[in-house]
């Protein structure tokens, strides 16, 4: 019964990788060491990429790993390691706010899951294959969405310039640095 086998395989993959995503997302939020948090987020992103493959969007799954897990998280890790942030402990000075934070997000989760389970049940999927390969996405990007595409490139340029300006020390502190080194 190959059809039943492929059904079972799909459900199994969904459950395994959904569990991995949730567990590692919890580790991001709850672990006190930000390096471990960043690496757990990488694993969560990878599990999400598997979810994207299950949703018949392999191009976006590959992009998720390349952009998020491969570039953005490396940037996070750089900043954490270069600023040597891993040895900071957070003193528990605001227990009331923390408790309120936990309960609010738990209430949010419960209500979301309840209402989605009740109202968001859809019918059958449309027939045919979902044309989500690189060619169709590329055609759509360059025909219908060419204006946002060009705008995003200008936005990325602005982000690069902004990041460079914000992270450099001011000119005054830059002038002081040689005197610090020489003494």
């Amino acid at each position, binding site marked *: 019964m190959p059809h039943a086998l492929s059904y079972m395989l799909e459900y199994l993959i*969904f459950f395994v990788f959904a569990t991995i*995503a*949730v567990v590692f*997302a*919890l580790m*991001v*939020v709850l672990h006190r060491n*930000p390096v471990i*948090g*960043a690496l757990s*987020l990488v694993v*969560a*992103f990878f599990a999400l990429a598997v979810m994207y493959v*299950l*949703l018949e*969007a392999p191009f*976006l799954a590959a*992009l998720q790993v390349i*952009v*998020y897990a491969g*570039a*953005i998280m490396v*940037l*996070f890790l750089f*900043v*954490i390691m270069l*600023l040597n*942030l891993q040895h*900071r402990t*957070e003193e528990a000075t*605001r227990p009331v706010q*923390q408790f309120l*934070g*936990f309960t*609010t*997000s*738990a209430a*949010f989760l419960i209500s*979301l*899951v309840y209402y*989605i*389970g009740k109202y*968001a*049940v*859809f019918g059958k*999927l449309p027939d045919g294959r979902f*044309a*989500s390969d690189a060619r169709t*996405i590329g055609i759509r*990007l360059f025909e219908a*969405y060419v204006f946002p595409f060009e705008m*995003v490139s200008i*936005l*990325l340029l602005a*982000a*690069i310039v*902004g*990041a460079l300006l*914000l*992270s450099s020390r001011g000119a005054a502190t830059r002038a002081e640095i040689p005197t610090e080194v020489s003494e």
Partner: protein
Amino acid sequence: MIPTHWFLILSAILFSIGVCGVLTRRNGITIFMSIELMVNAVNLTFLAYARQFHQLHGLIFVFFVMAIAAAEAAVGLAIFISLFHHRETIDVDEANLMHW
């Protein structure tokens, strides 16, 4: 085929975990990572709907969300670096210059 509302529930779980992170933690980098988690949960919702109705708009939107999240991460981390240079701490409770 996996029913679409399962993906929506997974996305809701990840989103609330992200919300919990933003509300509870004080380390700025951890808050930022929780925000990225929320953005990814929303990406999953977009793709679930795109697959349900066989529409490409969801995919294109996720594409743009990824690009913008990359830009946001770069600028946000630059802000954290400059905060660290001025205050020697990344604790967001210490970034309280607007009241003495």
